[in-house]
């Protein structure tokens, strides 16, 4: 029996997708309000991260985008009817990649924020 892409995982993919759309919307509005000219230089970015709540929003965005992408990749892999061994390996690899991307992203946010 394969590890199922069960209802929760599917629901998560859908909900995360919708949250990404919502966060992108907020992102554009906030971005426009904070930096009407855009984030075109290091200084702009650093200033942007001084606004309260921005770091939290960007981290949430990162988490949802990374997880949605990786769950999506996994479901494409499932379409290829992988053997249980391949699927187990893929699960581990995707988890590690996701964890690394998120930890790295969060670290980056804190680095920028601390330099502001």
């Amino acid at each position: 029996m394969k590890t199922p892409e069960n209802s929760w995982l599917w629901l998560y993919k859908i909900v995360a997708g919708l949250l990404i759309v919502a966060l992108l919307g907020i992102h554009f509005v906030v971005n426009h309000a904070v930096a009407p000219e855009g984030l075109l230089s290091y200084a702009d970015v650093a200033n942007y991260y001084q606004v309260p709540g921005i770091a939290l929003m960007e981290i949430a965005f990162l988490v949802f985008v990374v997880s949605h992408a990786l769950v999506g990749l996994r479901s494409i892999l499932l379409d290829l009817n992988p053997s249980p061994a391949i699927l187990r390996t893929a699960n581990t690899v995707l988890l590690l990649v996701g964890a690394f991307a998120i930890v790295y992203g969060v670290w980056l946010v804190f680095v920028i924020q601390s330099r502001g």
Partner: protein
Amino acid sequence: MSSERWHITLAVARYKQGADPHIQIFELEVDPDEYVLDAVERVWAFHDRGLVFRHACHHSTCGACGMRVNGQEKLTCITPIRAVCQKDGTLKIEPLRNFPVVSDLSVDMTSLYTRTESAAGAQVLNLKHSSLPFEKNLFPDDGLEHERLSDCIECGMCVSACPAALTDAAYAGPAALAAAHQTVVQKGLSALPAWVDSAEGVWRCHSGFECSAVCPSNVDPAWRIMELRRLVILNRVRCLFGLNKD
């Protein structure tokens, strides 16, 4: 069924066990109001007695004659030649996709039958449960209990048209999922087969809606798959909050 006569070319997929598949051309005189299946049968009767194809009822109640006509899944017994071909035109006839080919135009649909059986899909239904809920006043209703043969004729065309079924042999496919939904409509969620809520079940669907586009029999498998998703998720959420009475 008219006096009109068309000259058409039939390009028929041929395959015999142990030989290479190829396309064979047949030139035919046909009545454009006849059906594609009639043209195929004519090839067998007058050109090549070796042609293998599956057919039975010739009026869309049995689902045996699903084929791909010019790349598109068609129930050939009710597809008039006029609807898919021009005068002096060509009809390409191929077997359904996503099933092993037995020979020529005939495929082995064991997987479909096995799955609809495990979905407990009934062929005879109570008239009240036999339609889609958004259809109104379809049948005469005298208030008595009537039964009728179900809409799904298990022709396999939905599976042939499904993009997810192209690569995943384990996917239950639209027909079986539609049968599972029909079972739930009749008997309630407790009759839901366990495999519906799995990677090979209702979550493998990628909303291509191709099954409903080619279904010749009003089953609307895609709508039923979406309904199953809603029901399964709702049930899960209810269980989570301890609201389920089942």
